[in-house]
Structure formats: structure tokens, C-alpha cells
């Protein structure tokens, strides 16, 4: 079975902006939040969270420029 055929993944891939990067961000988001809930605030979790938000903003900009 392919990754894109998994129940939740399939629905995420079929909806939205048809962009695998955004789809991935959507799928990673809850995992990251759950990780933060378990591990708590640390340099690593803060760094990952900042990277997530900055990547999202940068990718929106990139998509705009590349179009």
C-alpha cells in the first residue's frame, strides 16, 4: 500500500491546494504539537516549531514568486 492510500493521508492529498508540501505540513502539524505536549518547551522543540512556521511562510512566498 502506498503512503497516499492511507485513510487520512488520502483525504488530505485529495483536498486543499493540491500541493504535497502543504499536505505534508498539514500531516506533520499534529505530530509536532503532540511532541511538544509530551516533551515540553525546550531548545529543540522551539527550534522545530520556529522552523515549521518560517517554512510555511517562506513556502507561500516561494509559490507566489515561482508562479
Amino acid at each position, binding site marked *: 500500500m502506498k503512503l497516499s492510500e492511507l485513510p487520512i493521508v488520502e*483525504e*488530505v492529498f*485529495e*483536498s*486543499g*491546494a*493540491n*500541493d504535497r508540501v*502543504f499536505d505534508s*505540513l*498539514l500531516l506533520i*502539524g*499534529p505530530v*509536532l*504539537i503532540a511532541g*511538544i*505536549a509530551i516533551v515540553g*518547551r525546550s531548545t529543540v522543540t*522551539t527550534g522545530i*516549531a*520556529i522552523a*515549521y*512556521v518560517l517554512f*510555511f511562510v517562506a513556502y*507561500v*512566498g516561494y*509559490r*507566489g*514568486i*515561482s*508562479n
Partner: protein
Amino acid sequence: MNEATKTIGRDLGRMFQALAGLLFVSVLIPLIWGEYYAIPALVVSGVLPFAIGRLLTSRFREAAKPGKLHGMIIAALGWFCVAIFGSLPFFLIAWTVELAPPILGDPSQTSTLAAFTQPINALFESMSGFTGTGLTMTDNEEVLPRTLQWWRSFIEWTGGVGVIVLTTAILARPGSGSLTLYKSEARSERIHPSIVSTVQTIWWIFILFTFVSILLLWIVGMPLWGAINHAMTGLSTGGFSITDNSIATYDSAAIDFALLPIMLLGSIAFPVHYLILQGDLRNLYADLQTRWVFIYMSLGTFVLTTLVYVGDTYDSLFTAFRYGSFQFVSAATCAGFQTAVDTTNVALGRWSAQAQLTVTFGMVIGGAAGSTVGGIKLIRALTLLKGVRHRISDVFYPETAVRRLNINGRRLNEREIRQEFEEAAIITMLWGAFLAIGIFVLLMILPQGEYTLENVIFEVASAQGNVGLSAGITGPESLPTLGKLMFLFNMWIGRLEIIPVLVTLRAVFRRGGIYQ
């Protein structure tokens, strides 16, 4: 039983089942936080709408597809009934704690939670949540069980998606803004061709933005539970908080400024978000409503900052900007988060009359149609302004001249202009009329001299605009029962943009034979 009733009954049944699903999912929260006493209340609250929903859907399975009239009635009745069923967790958990049966442990009762033992308070909270208003019957949200903190945020969040779906997919009509979005010649017509995929895509965007918002708030220092709840209520521009003094509790400029883009995201039309995520950034300035969201927020922030700075409400320009920008954006996006409260600075209700009325103006206009905001909506205000200018300039053209009006890339002919202008004028007139009625009723029932006129205008505009900012009038004790009932109505009509509620009331009274 006629066909329309069957169609409406079946679709209401589906809504009730969806609500039951939300309640069953929420059982995870008391499990995580160890509030086991709340589980029976949540299960009972879910079983009831599920059973009724199941009955309606199975009985009317073969009913015809809904038309425009059905859509309006389903939306209006659905929102009202969902608010009623959604009040059950408040009511039942409050009574569980009140009675404290030994088998469910010994949860401690607080005056905040005890307020929900009154059905009217529970219904008020639920209606406020589902309509994304954020006015509350609690006096200290911090002491509420986590289960209810979650339920308040969750209903605002799902209510936010509900209203986007309603305005972009179901009730799109001339002058509603949504149709303008769809028919724009410059852009694609809909998010997706079918309602089902439109709804899926709206959820997709909403959930992605929610994760980004949660992480942003957490990065700037908000605890994770607060970040989850405030991201949900900020993005849905609902404004419920889990802290006693809303966002003022954190007293952090970083959190204040981080919430601004979150509230703004909620106030931009979701079809535009879709296009932006696809790389079409032109819509940030090319789309009429989105352009005006930024212009309007900037102008409002400038005016409000000036008023509170010059009026000596705050002594530094930065503080004036911090509170001025937050409160205007919070009002105009209809989020209703509050940073101006007594404990940290000057409460909104004590700002100068000019400043309060500027915030009120923000609440009345609101943001973009097709987003989660309330109020009249920018597209209607702009349609009215352009329409008035068009009519006046008409005098200077010969009668035979063929004139068109350009709104958001659409070139409207005379018939279309009339249609758009009429709809915008009717909604605005009704909005003003119900606002005036609300103000009159509140002035009649509140103790003389307790609140100023600007406080009263502010509070009614906040309820009807689904904003949630308070000048201090709304509360379990401070607002008389008649006021609570009136605000229930204000919140309801405000969320549904009045017409569907009036259509429903007409259908109920005429078809029900009450005045025939």
C-alpha cells in the same frame, strides 16, 4: 407532511449527527485531563442529538434535494438547534459537579461553573460559541473544567468553518459577497466545483492554518493549552478565551502582535486563501475585499491609536499602538479578544466615547464575506459606497447612456447593479434596525445610570456583529434575562446575516398557521 419539511428534517438530522460526532470526539479531553466526571455528561449530550438525527435522516432518507429556500431554513434552524444541543455539556457538567455523585469523584464547584446550572446561561454560552461571538456567561474562564474550556473553543472553531461553508457554498446570492467572489472575471469561479469538495478544501485550509497558529502562539510564549485554544478561537474569530482576562492575562506584547495575523487570516475570504496557497499572491491586493481588509485595519488602527494617545488613555505611543491596533483588529475581524481590561490598563468600557465608537464602527462593518467574520461585511459597505456614487454621477449622463459598475473585476449591468445594491442596502438597513431595537431594549432593562449610551451601543453591536468584546454589561448577573434572550436573537441573526432567520420565521408562522 410536505416535501419541504422532509428535506429540512433530513438535513437537520445530518447536522445533529455531525454535532454528536463532535461531542463524542471531545470525550478525549476529559480522558487526557483526568476529568472523568465530565464523560457521562458528554456522552449523554452526544447520544441525544445522534438519536434524533438518526431518526430524522432514516425517516426522510428519500426526501428531495434542498433548494435555496430549504438552504436558508436549514441554516437558520440548524444553527439554533445545534446551539440548544451544544448547551447540554455546559448544563450537564455544571449539574454533575453541583450534585457531585460519589461514583464520579468529588469535583469542586465554582461560581463560574454554577452559572451554567441555569439553562439560559448554558444556551447563551453555546449560541455565543457556535455563532463565533465570544460574549460569555462566565466570570472566570480559568476555573472552568478543561473539558468545557475545550468545548467552548471547539464549537467556535467548527462554527467558524460552518459560516464559511454557509457563505461560500450554500447561501451565495447577489450582494452576499460570495457571489461576487465566484463571479470575479479575474479569478477561478469556485474553490472546487462541488459543495462536498469545497467543504473538504475549506477544512483543509482551516486545519493547516490552525496548526500554524498554534505553533506561532506557542513560540511567542503562550502555554500549549492556551495556544491550542486561542489559535482555534482566534482563527475562527470567535474570541473565547481560557483565561480570566482574555489575552490581557498574558500581558505580553509578543502574544498581542502574534495574534494580529491570526485574526487577519480569519477575516480574509477563504476562496482567496485557496488561491494564495496555490501561488496566486496577486489576490492580496487585486481582490477588492482583501485589499480593503488591510486598508481598513490600517486606517482603524491609526485612528484608534491617535484617539487613545491624544486622549491620554495611555502615556506612551507604543502602548497606545499596542492596545489600539489589537483592539481595532480584534473588533473589525470580529474576534473579540480583549487586551484592554482593568487589571492591566484602562478597560475598553472606560475608553473615551470617541474611541469606543471607533471600535463599534469596526464591529459593525466587519471583514470580508466568505470568511469567519460577522458584521455587515466589507463587500456590502463597498457596494453601497460605489452604488451611491454611481447613482449620483448618473445625473450627469444622458438618459440613453449605457453605464456599468465595476466591482471586484465584475462589470455589472443595470439589472445586476440593482440586484447587488438592493441586497446590500436591505441587509444594512435590517442590521441597523435590529441594532436600534437591541439598544432600545437594553436601555429599558438595564439599571439607570449604570452604563453609558456608548457602552450600550458597543455591547449590542458586539453581540449582533458576533464580536464578543464587552463593555462590562454581559455577565450571568449583570445582564437581565430579557437581555440574554435578546442577545441570543442578536447573535443568531448576526451570524446568518438576518435574511435566513426572517425567512425561517415567516415560514414557521405562515405555514404553522399562527397568524393566518
